[in-house]
């Protein structure tokens, strides 16, 4: 998998677990209740299930990159947060190679929810081993 245009193997999380969001609240030192209490999400008009932390969504994309390029080192990643991921959803991280030069590869990245809704878009660069 070293040619421009190659599609990277998908990394799937199914389902996104509300219990993991409680762990991430501790990791991030951020007790925002939209990640912990569905009644708060409802009260804010944001849906009826707790919302996954954005950095957790980025972590799924990073896992996809690590699996696609064993031994490579992540040198840069830019993530644009375009929608939320809700507890119980299936999400798929994917990417495609856009450039290869000087021992490094650049990719587009994406995270898409089960209904086809884009959640993260962006780019990433890896230094190849």
């Amino acid at each position, binding site marked *: 998998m070293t040619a421009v245009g190659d599609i990277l193997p998908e*990394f799937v*999380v199914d389902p996104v*677990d509300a219990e*993991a969001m409680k*762990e*991430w609240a501790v*990791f*991030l*030192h*951020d007790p*925002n209740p*939209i990640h912990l209490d569905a009644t708060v999400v409802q009260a*804010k008009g*944001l849906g009826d299930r707790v919302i996954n932390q*954005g*950095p*957790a969504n*980025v*972590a*799924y994309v*990073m*896992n996809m990159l*690590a*699996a696609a390029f064993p031994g490579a*080192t*992540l*040198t*840069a*990643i*830019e*993530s*644009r*947060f375009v929608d939320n991921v809700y507890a119980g959803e299936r999400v798929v991280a994917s990417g495609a190679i856009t450039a290869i030069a000087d021992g490094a590869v650049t990719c587009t990245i994406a995270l898409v929810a089960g209904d086809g809704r884009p959640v993260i878009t*962006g780019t990433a660069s890896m230094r190849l081993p």
Partner: protein
Amino acid sequence: MATLPDLPPPPDVAGMSLDGTEPFTVDAAENAALCRSTGVEPAADGSAHPIYYFIATQVGMGKTVAGLCAACDFDVDDGPMMGSSAVRFARPIRIGEPYRVSGEITGLVRKRSRKLGVMDVLDYRLRLHDAAGAVILEADNIWVLPRKELA
């Protein structure tokens, strides 16, 4: 989106320091729990999951998320939203190494969007330094602060 000369300007916070005061260290057990929560096993080479770029800089900066929002005259309970995050690594984050955070707010701009109405766009930069002071990563984060009271 357009800037809004007809509305009061947002607080002048550009340049405000976000330097941390306490070192941040990735704990091996927490890294393992984080990795498994995302569906992978921790790396065997002593490197932390790269998402610690965000965690280390957020936890180690000189303000909490609520404090950062307050500096922008925004109540964290009103729902700040992450717009984007970009990081450039000089090298991976290591488990057990103490890191220090430096950074600053780089902009707070009031805008209007069709979807969100009036909002402030907060831009800030954070760096993670090793014990010798070398920068091992630099992150630029953008948050959207909806200003419903100005809509």
